[in-house]
């Protein structure tokens, strides 16, 4: 799982690939041509980016017909954002405790023995 996560993070190291993923998330499946349209790069360059995303398990290409639409594997993306969110929540809990200490320091007019008068 961690290997997959690392590959996914690395695949998203590129701003164009991040943008491709964001567009697939917003608009759903799309062809390489659709995806390449807004960029000032060749179709081949976009295909290369898609291949990196595909190897990271972030997107898949269906085999049907010639369109071969690109499909976002939302699960992998959720795995990544889920872990980051969990980490963020832990940090948030820690900072909420710091909030309480800071409020205590306020009441005690500063000293480390603050909180004596807190009721």
């Amino acid at each position, binding site marked *: 799982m961690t290997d997959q996560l690392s590959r996914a993070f690395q695949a998203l190291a590129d701003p164009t690939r991040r943008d491709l993923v964001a567009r697939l998330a917003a608009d759903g499946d799309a062809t390489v041509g659709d995806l390449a349209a807004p960029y000032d790069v060749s179709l081949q360059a976009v295909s290369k980016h898609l291949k990196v995303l595909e190897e990271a398990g972030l997107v898949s290409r269906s085999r049907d017909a010639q369109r071969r639409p690109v499909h976002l594997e939302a699960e992998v993306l959720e795995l990544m954002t889920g872990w980051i969110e969990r980490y963020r929540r832990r940090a948030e809990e820690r900072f909420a405790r*710091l909030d309480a200490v800071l409020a205590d320091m306020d009441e005690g007019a500063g000293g480390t023995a603050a909180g004596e008068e807190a009721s």
Partner: protein
Amino acid sequence: MTTTRNATQIEAPADVPVIRLVREFDAPRERVFRAWTDPTLFARWIGPRSIDTTIDVWDARSGGEWRYTASRGEDFQMAFWGCFHQVREPERLVQTFSFEGEPDGVSLETLVFEELPGGRTRTIATSVVESFEIRDQILASGMDTGVVEGYEKLDELLAEEA
């Protein structure tokens, strides 16, 4: 609610092995800085309520060292250590950070305290690790592996945010 205004933002840039946490506090910069560098105050907030934090060594000066132990009863104990690379009150704190479970691993933590209007403070904590793989492992499993904390308080916070 202040919870909404002060929500922690996280950033894991894809181009550098870094974790960045940005948070605002309703307290002046000097006070936030002190809560981070005074051992008694630091021990009060760094760990979850179910964990006892014992400061073993704490010399908050540039070049000084620090070490603390997090424990819960006798079944769980973990030590963290490093040095205060740079202490510039009240705006900048740079530390190395290691933990017992990964003795050869070290990260560089840079903390910047920004003054905000109305006696408030923004802290930007940037943690640089050795590789993307390690960064992503940290994000995936957390530094405090083995620390299981009830999420009730968090649920409340999230409910307030909604």
